[in-house]
């Protein structure tokens, strides 16, 4: 039955309408900027936008997993800074680049799992646990470096941000890789299925045999690890690990996730939507810069876009439901 040509699932449009809507928002935004600025629709500028988006987009993947379980991770920016300075110091101590990268990922993972343990074993609300971690990781990063940036790395390490693969910046390649894996994990694996089930109804998931604690902790671990990965790219790009890096990234990541259609109540959302959300934010910033709009006004515009996106989403859902 299914082999005969393309057959869309019965609710294809209700399923993907949200992403199609966000995507047309992104394309519309690009069209407007194309008309307003001759510099916008050029290959080099678009790659630049993707590079700008990469770091928040990677952090937002972890945030999407967490938010689908019905939680929140406020510590991503601080964990990024902490993982960055730890990695920088071991690189300065002379370890090979792959080990340094592994240290960044491991540091992020450890912070994330600690969040997960506080939430599952300690039964703290995610907001509180990660709010605490936000401050602890930031403070530790500042103590660790006495508040100073750790700068100057080998060309090999810096190429993780500045290098290109077939003309595409390495950071963009990494971002795309992360999204492919994450989309696959969310739609095709047990982890993904359980992520939705926990967010949709934690008790029903538990009673259906889902090891809720394990999978919740894993999701915070993933979020922490992706913050570590973002730290690698940011450090390589700036040639410097700063203890004050990643300030407010949690808010940008939450914004990208929410613009992408993930519900803060949990149980629904996609990483494809999140990617579009992150791109909308990057395109908006880039376009406003090209048009010479002041950074003060930019904040107002971006805030308005977040509110408008969610308003439209809720309005559409009410009409459908």
């Amino acid at each position, binding site marked *: 039955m299914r082999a005969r040509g393309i057959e869309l699932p019965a609710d294809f449009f209700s399923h993907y309408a949200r992403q199609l809507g966000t995507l047309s928002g992104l394309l519309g935004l690009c069209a407007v900027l194309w008309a307003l600025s001759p510099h916008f629709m050029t290959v080099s500028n678009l790659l630049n936008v993707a590079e700008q988006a990469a770091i928040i987009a990677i952090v937002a993947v972890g945030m999407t997993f967490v938010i689908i379980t019905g939680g929140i991770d406020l510590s991503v920016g601080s964990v990024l800074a902490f993982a960055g300075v730890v990695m920088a110091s071991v690189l300065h101590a002379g370890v090979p680049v792959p080990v340094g990268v592994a240290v960044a990922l491991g540091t992020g993972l450890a912070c994330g799992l600690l969040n997960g343990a506080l939430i599952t074993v300690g039964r703290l609300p995610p907001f509180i646990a990660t709010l605490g971690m936000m401050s602890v990781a930031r403070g530790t990063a500042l103590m660790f470096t006495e508040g100073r940036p750790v700068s100057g790395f080998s060309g090999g390490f810096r190429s993780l941000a500045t290098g290109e693969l077939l003309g595409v910046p390495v950071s963009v390649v990494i971002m795309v890789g992360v999204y492919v894996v994450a989309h696959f994990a969310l739609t*095709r*694996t*047990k982890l993904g*299925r359980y992520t*939705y*089930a926990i967010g949709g*109804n934690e008790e029903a998931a538990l*009673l259906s*045999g889902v090891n809720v604690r394990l999978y919740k902790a894993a999701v915070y671990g993933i979020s922490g690890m992706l913050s570590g990965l973002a730290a690698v790219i940011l450090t390589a790009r700036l040639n410097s690990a700063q203890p004050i890096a990643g300030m407010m990234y949690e808010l940008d990541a939450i914004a990208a996730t929410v613009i992408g259609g993930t519900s803060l109540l949990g*149980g629904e959302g996609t990483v494809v939507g999140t990617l579009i959300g992150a791109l909308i934010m990057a395109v908006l910033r880039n376009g406003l810069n090209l048009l010479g709009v002041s950074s003060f006004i930019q904040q107002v515009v971006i805030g308005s876009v977040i509110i408008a996106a969610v308003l439209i989403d809720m309005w559409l859902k009410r009409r459908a439901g």
Partner: protein
Amino acid sequence: MAEATVLEMREIRKTFPGVVALDGVDFCLRRGEVHILLGENGAGKSTLMKILSGAYQKMAGRITLDGKEVEIKNPAHAQALGISTIYQEFNLVPHLSVGENIFLGREPVRLGLIDRRAVNRRAAEVLGGLGLNLDPRRPVKGLRVAEQQMVEVAKALSLDARVLIMDEPTAALTEHEIKELFAAIRGLKAKGVSVVYISHRMEELFEIGDRVTVLRDGRSVGTFGVRETSKFELIRLMVNRNLTELFPKEHAGRGEEVLKVEGLTTRDLKDVSFTLHKGEVLGVAGLLGAGRTELARAIFGLDKLEGGTVRIKGRERRIGSPRAAINLGLGFLTEDRKAQGLVLPLSVKDNLCLPSVDKFTSFGLVDSKRERRAAERYVKELRIRTPGLDQKVVYLSGGNQQKVVLSKWLCSEAEVFIFDEPTRGVDVGAKAEIYQLMNRLAASGVAIIMISSELPEILGMSDRILVMRGGRVACEFEAAEATQEKILECALGE
């Protein structure tokens, strides 16, 4: 009794995307009568009442109130017209007092301040009129469910309601509280208030109702005087088929022992022992709080054991989590389908396969084709009414949701099913289907523990009956020797 018509609904139509909910329904309410609205889940009772209470807008048809045609625009408008609704979930503010709740939004004001004395005096008047001795200053959160319900009734009366809609008002009440509620309803009738009463419980219908209207598939099948009809006649009209027997119990032969519980002790259980055999239905009766659900939780690995052993097929097992229980072949159909049984925003397929995702996973990937095949099979076998496997379960009716929960455990190939209140909130037609499924399960060698508060169900479906009291097994009966009186006596400890 006055025969004057208060309210008339004619040819009411309402459609939702893909569904005709009401297809020309007529409904007529007389002054001072209790009019029962009867129908299977999905027959259109709730939709009809939501139109009357202003929550939905009708698409065609006429509503006449006291002979004048009205367009009910919203719930506030309905209240202004004298139509009040008491939903199953109350609309009370827990931290405010009884009086404050009754006059919420319409507080008597004196010199720009709320006149508390007037609130309490007038609340006491309304409550007294209902024959209720309730202090209006008490906060609502400390009240029993039945008392909260009476606060809702009082609120409706203070709004000068002439038509009162009650949706399953006895669902959470004890026998004694039901009597109090009925006394209050009779008092309302005497005052000329008309009551539309939605219930699945046939017994209540004959006790409190004057007339009954039966809905089926979005149409009105007929209106009858309660005295001129019978339970079986009404069931036949609701489901459009003859149910010769409500409990089509078939005794499957008692097979080998599958579950043996000895000395089970937890925070809520004391020294519980019993055995369960293949093909057997073990009914578990008892009052609320007797430890019935706690027994299920303990066996299913949800509560910590302080003592005792659980043997499955002769081998002692430590069941530390639901996962372990499921792997050993247990399935638990919880009492509260929406809060515990289903992940409402997920699809029929995803819910159905949730306990057995492992079975469909190879090399870390979930094989969704095999999942779909399995899900399709159960949707067909159990006749689950859904537009597709990707439909979110939140949009299914109660009976169909219950079937999805049942399929979950069929799919995980459970051999011991624990049913906790399997037919609560399920209409008569779906009830009979669930009983038949239990028979089929038992015949195929599945062992069933059935926890229920409905004695007819316990007596009708069980092979053996445990009665619990205070966390212990108080008595055990063979089905043949059990009677309603014996079970009650034992449950009450007399």
